[in-house]
């Protein structure tokens, strides 16, 4: 069974190049996903990688002797990693009295021992590079100090700790680096105050901005004497207006500020005099300084010019000399450069060469060298927000021929390569090319629909607002597109992507149209920020249309209606509880008006613990005439008492789930009718005290209440309290059952519970005579307003793991039995048969029940090592599991995403409707041939015998 596993690292925060002169060229990076990885500089492959937990944010990385050190968890953990293999060498825990900024400095030695100076949690530590032992520590607890920098002038035993104290005091502490003794403490008040970052221009000079952002302050603290010099920015730049921002860098003698998107490089000369050396109007990113030889520093900056980027490397002390100036064409739009890291090497002609690692707006990582992109990594895929699927186009005759003609040259080249390969003349590059051609032409990666429905497009939206289409056959990226409509602009300051919806799924009619997806975004984190809609073609990735920031988007409800072009109707609810209909066509409006009174939805106010039900009322009565806007009204509300219950999880059934049968035949040939409602909602609440971490409350003070609610009428169908239990709750709702996972404080174990809901109102239909005479209510429409006659069955079991996500397999017709897919804490996906979570399990099932497949009751759910879907692989940082039905009823596609991506096919009841991949057709053929041969042989034999008989 095909398995696709792709490894990513996430958006790079910091990079550190190996300085070893060995042939191995590597770079160590830390990322926003808390990954520490070592990458190959030639190809961009991962040598080794460590994913620290989501709470273990990496604050800084640096080189310490032959190790890489990372400072993480708010500066409280310092770890050293061995560079060649990524083994952790030592770990040191640095505690301190108060929370503060954490800083890491490593270019210091005490008697051959590399020492890391770490400022974190209000304390300065010196940590030995050999074993991570803390050599000395010095508290800065008493002073209300906001430390900005620790500075170690080269060639001395001094360390300066500089920062801002209370009431705009500038403070300098001079410390003996050998023993942590405080040598001198100077402070001086400054009238204008400070804001933001400071920039270090020499070991005894700093540049900062005052609190208004319009004056530059040069601070020098030579020999403990502090002197200030204020320079208004307007003196340096005539057209400056608006506050300036200091670009964080540490280049000797030069710093950069940003005023109105213009980057200005300023040189500090002698006695704190400032001099503008260059103004760049394009978007620019600046790297840190890199010392290339004794006393010489180089730094790089990248600026945008249309679809090109210009990389410039300059000497710090001489602005007029360009060490390097390159123009690089971008292969595809990747947005702005957000970070630059440079590294130097010695060229074949003994001159300095530079390579730059750049991080783009879409979180991709590129290596630039000699004016080219050597490699690129699509690390945006490490932060997927939402996933949807699209069918591939149907294979049409003639299309493939046209393609061959179009690429006649490539076709010839391919055959030549293959010929070379068979004649054993191919070089390693040729062999790689042949393999890639083979991969391309293989069945798996074809861009057309297959008979079994295994080939699909997975459309994913990443947090960098980039859309990717992944092929389920081999996992390659079919297209990627950085959404222009979700780009930062004047009207949309902080755009974020929210969700993906299938907008148009061509089905019966409108077959010629391409499917498209709807991307919903929002300008800013708050709910009432204006929303952005974008419609993207699923085959090409082109943005078909997009709306400028419109009304806010609090909720998106895909309606079960489509128009004549198979566009699905969507209802967008804004923060003021107005409903907006999309698409905005008269036809859609007509369809909508017909179903006007049958549309209900609900909203959950998490922080308030209120659930409300809504329906449509009338056209909007605002000043602007908008016929696609509707007023709504509140139909019902459920108010959880704030002192005893907080909502922690809500789950509904998947909209596209297919249920094969409503009835369930139980052991004694009786029938139970499943209560299948599209409007059922599962809600879990916990005691407010129990909202914290596991173990923070006693069992008496914590409880968990599970509800099943009908979202049309607000009727509570089922309500059950688990005393002594607490969250986090992970739940999945499918058909007529819900399974949820929580922690039982009394038993000190995780538990999983199942609730199954059966409809009693249809139980009378068992009479065959009634069925024959048509006196049954099976075909009458179900109304939520009828009082439901339901019974629920539930059971709880212990489960040995904590869980990151739960999903359930879904198949095309819903016939195949279900499996729960559980994302475990070890970042693996476990498939657990739903039969284990059957509330009808009992300790001693009868023979009839055994025949039905009921497993004897056990107190815990078994974990069978073979049922790990991911086998030995790990989907690092697992966040979500998505299942997509294939056309073949027995099979479902499972896509798990986190920092890594994982895709496989799963057959919960095994592939009963097709032969397995490892079925030996050759053996079957041989058998048939052998049989035919045997028949002939025996036939001849008997003929001959008959003949002989006759002769006798």
């Amino acid at each position: 069974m095909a398995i696709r596993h792709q490894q990513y690292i996430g958006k790079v925060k910091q990079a550190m190049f190996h300085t070893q002169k060995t042939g191995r060229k590597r770079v160590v990076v830390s990322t926003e996903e808390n990954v520490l990885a070592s990458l190959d500089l030639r190809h961009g492959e991962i040598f080794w990688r460590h994913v620290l937990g989501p709470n273990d944010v990496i604050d800084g990385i640096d080189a310490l002797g032959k190790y890489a050190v990372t400072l993480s968890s708010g500066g409280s953990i310092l770890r050293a990693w061995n560079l060649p293999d990524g083994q952790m060498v030592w770990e040191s825990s640095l505690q301190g009295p108060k929370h503060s900024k954490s800083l890491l400095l490593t270019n210091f030695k005490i008697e051959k021992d590399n020492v890391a100076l770490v400022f974190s949690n209000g304390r300065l530590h010196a940590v030995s590079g050999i074993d991570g032992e803390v050599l000395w520590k010095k508290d800065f607890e008493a002073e209300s100090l906001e430390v900005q920098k620790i500075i170690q002038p080269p060639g001395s035993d001094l360390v300066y700790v500089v920062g801002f104290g209370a009431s705009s005091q500038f403070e300098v502490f001079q410390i003996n680096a050998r023993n942590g003794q405080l040598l001198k403490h100077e402070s001086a008040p400054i009238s204008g105050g400070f804001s933001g970052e400071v920039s270090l221009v020499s070991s005894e000079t700093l540049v900062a901005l005052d609190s208004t952002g319009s004056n530059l302050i040069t601070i020098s603290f030579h020999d403990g004497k502090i002197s200030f010099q204020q320079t208004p920015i307007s003196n340096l730049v005539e057209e400056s207006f608006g506050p300036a921002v200091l670009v964080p860098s540490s280049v000797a003698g030069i710093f950069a500020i940003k005023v109105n998107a213009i980057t200005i490089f300023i040189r500090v000369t002698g006695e704190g005099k400032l001099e503008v050396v260059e103004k760049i109007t394009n978007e620019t990113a600046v790297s840190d300084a890199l010392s290339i030889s004794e006393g010489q520093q180089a730094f790089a900056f990248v600026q945008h010019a249309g679809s090109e980027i210009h990389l410039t490397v300059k000497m710090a002390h001489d602005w007029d000399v360009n060490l390097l100036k390159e123009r690089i064409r971008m292969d595809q739009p990747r947005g702005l450069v957000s970070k630059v890291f440079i590294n130097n090497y010695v060229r074949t002609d003994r001159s300095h060469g530079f390579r730059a690692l750049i991080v783009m707006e879409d979180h991709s990582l590129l290596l630039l060298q000699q004016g080219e992109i050597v490699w690129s990594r699509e690390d945006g895929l490490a932060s997927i927000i939402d996933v949807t699927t699209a069918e591939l186009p149907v294979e049409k005759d003639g299309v493939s021929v046209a393609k061959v003609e179009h690429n006649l040259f490539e076709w010839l080249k391919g055959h030549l390569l293959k010929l070379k390969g068979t004649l054993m003349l191919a070089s390693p590059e040729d062999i790689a090319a042949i393999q890639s051609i083979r991969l391309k032409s293989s069945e798996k990666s074809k861009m057309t629909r297959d008979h079994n429905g295994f080939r699909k497009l997975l459309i994913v939206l990443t947090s960098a607002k980039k859309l990717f289409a992944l092929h389920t056959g081999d996992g390659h990226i079919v297209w990627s597109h950085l959404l222009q409509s979700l780009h930062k602009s004047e009207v949309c300051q902080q755009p974020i992507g929210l969700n993906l919806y299938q907008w148009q799924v061509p089905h019966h009619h409108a077959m010629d149209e391409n499917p498209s997806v709807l991307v919903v975004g929002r300008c800013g984190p708050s709910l009432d920020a204006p929303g952005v809609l974008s419609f993207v073609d699923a085959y090409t990735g082109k943005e078909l249309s997009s709306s400028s920031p419109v009304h806010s988007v609090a909720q998106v409800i895909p309606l079960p209606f489509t128009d004549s072009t198979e566009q699905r109707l969507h209802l967008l609810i804004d923060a003021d509880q107005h409903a907006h209909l999309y698409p905005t066509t008269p036809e859609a409006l007509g369809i909508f008006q017909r179903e006007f009174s049958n549309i209900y939805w609900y909203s959950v106010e998490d922080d308030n613990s209120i659930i409300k039900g809504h329906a449509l009322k009338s056209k909007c009565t605002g000043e602007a005439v908008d016929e696609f806007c509707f007023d709504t009204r509140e139909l019902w509300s459920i108010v959880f008492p704030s002192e005893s219950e907080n909502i922690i999880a809500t789950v509904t059934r998947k909209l596209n789930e297919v249920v094969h049968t409503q009835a369930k035949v139980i052991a004694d040939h009786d029938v139970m009718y499943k209560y299948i409602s599209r409007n059922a909602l599962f809600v879990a609440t916990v005691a407010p005290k129990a909202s914290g971490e596991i173990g923070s409350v006693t069992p008496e003070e914590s409880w968990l209440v599970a509800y099943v609610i009908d979202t049309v009428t607000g009727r509570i169908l089922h309500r059950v309290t688990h005393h002594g239990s607490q969250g986090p709750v992970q739940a999945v709702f499918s058909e007529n059952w819900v399974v949820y996972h929580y922690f039982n404080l009394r038993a000190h174990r995780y538990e999983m519970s199942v609730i199954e809901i059966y409809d009693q109102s249809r139980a009378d239909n068992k009479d065959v005579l009634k069925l024959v005479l048509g006196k049954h209510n099976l075909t009458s429409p179900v109304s939520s307003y009828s009082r439901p006659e339901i019974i629920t069955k539930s059971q709880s079991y212990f489960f040995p793991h904590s869980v990151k996500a739960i999903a359930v397999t879904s198949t095309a017709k819903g016939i195949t039995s279900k499996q729960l897919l559980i994302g475990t804490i070890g970042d693996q996906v476990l498939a657990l048969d739903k039969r284990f979570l059957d509330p009808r399990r009992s300790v001693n099932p009868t023979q009839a029940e055994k025949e039905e497949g009921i497993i004897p009751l056990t107190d815990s759910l078994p974990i069978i090592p073979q049922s790990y879907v991911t086998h030995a692989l790990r989907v690092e940082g697992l966040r979500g599991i998505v299942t997509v039905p294939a056309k073949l009823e027995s099979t479902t596609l499972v896509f798990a995403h986190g920092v890594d991506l994982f895709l496989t096919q799963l057959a919960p009841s095994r592939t009963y409707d097709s032969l397995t991949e490892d079925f030996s057709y050759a053996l079957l053929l041989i058998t048939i041939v052998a049989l035919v041969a045997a028949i002939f042989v025996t036939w001849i034999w008997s003929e001959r015998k008959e003949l002989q008989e006759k002769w006798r």
Partner: protein
Amino acid sequence: MKTSKVIVAFILTLSLLSLPSLGFQSDELLVDDEEFGLEGAPQTRSPESIPTRSPPVVTPTKKRHSDLDSDSKIQFSLDHAFGDSGFAPAGTFSARLKTWSHGGQTLTKLRFSRNNFTDEEKQKFKNLLESDDFYRMRLPSNVLSPPGRDFIISSVKARCLPREGLDEHFVIHMEGTNVLAVNYGSPGSCPYPRILKLPAKWSFNSHTVLKSSDQAPRAPVFTEEILGVGGENGEGEVVQPPERSFWAKYWMYLIPLGLIVMNAITQAMNLPEEQATGQGPAQGQPSAGAVQRGPGSAVRRR
């Protein structure tokens, strides 16, 4: 049916077993789960709507505590609205507030008195029926300090209510003195499409149910011994991969093989037989005989 009874019995015994360890709180919750009828309108309760559920097991417990617990009477009002109109009083609930020795407070003996529709309200209700609109109900979310955090709202299509008179059914979900939710609707079914039907009598026939949360069944805890056995059984059944038997796997090869073998055997049986009958002397050198026969037949054919 039998199995479900067994399960119910099992769950019952389990919950009964767990009762003592839970203390009084669980008792209290069970006490609440009583069904009360209503009066209000001149009409009396229809006989079939008399609540049949009663918690006989718990009654003694309740009595035992009654001397410790103090009661007080409280009232809270029910408001209604026609379509999108404002809310107006529609009736009052009165109940006894029981304060338990351990500090909890619960409502018991809920009574409901429903105001009759005025002529104006009747007209409004008729309008609702005609436009198939919502009839809405409102309760405070806390009965001690109304309206509490917010009002609890419930709505029903007006056409669901009329029958003989106006039948309504309240399910009030309580947590202590807080009202979580109220489910308002007709006591029976309300088939879709809803047909317009005016009530014969403009009087309410109300049923009220007070509900509080159920206890979840505990995860079954087995003793070591049973656990071992049970676990093994369970595991055994699972681990045992539905391994197909040798026959199931290879029948397609085995059958032809068997046929060939059988064929060969019959041949082999026939061969000696025929040799024994036909060429008696040549027995022992069948191959030689065959060789001899070959050319001979060829000659003959010529």
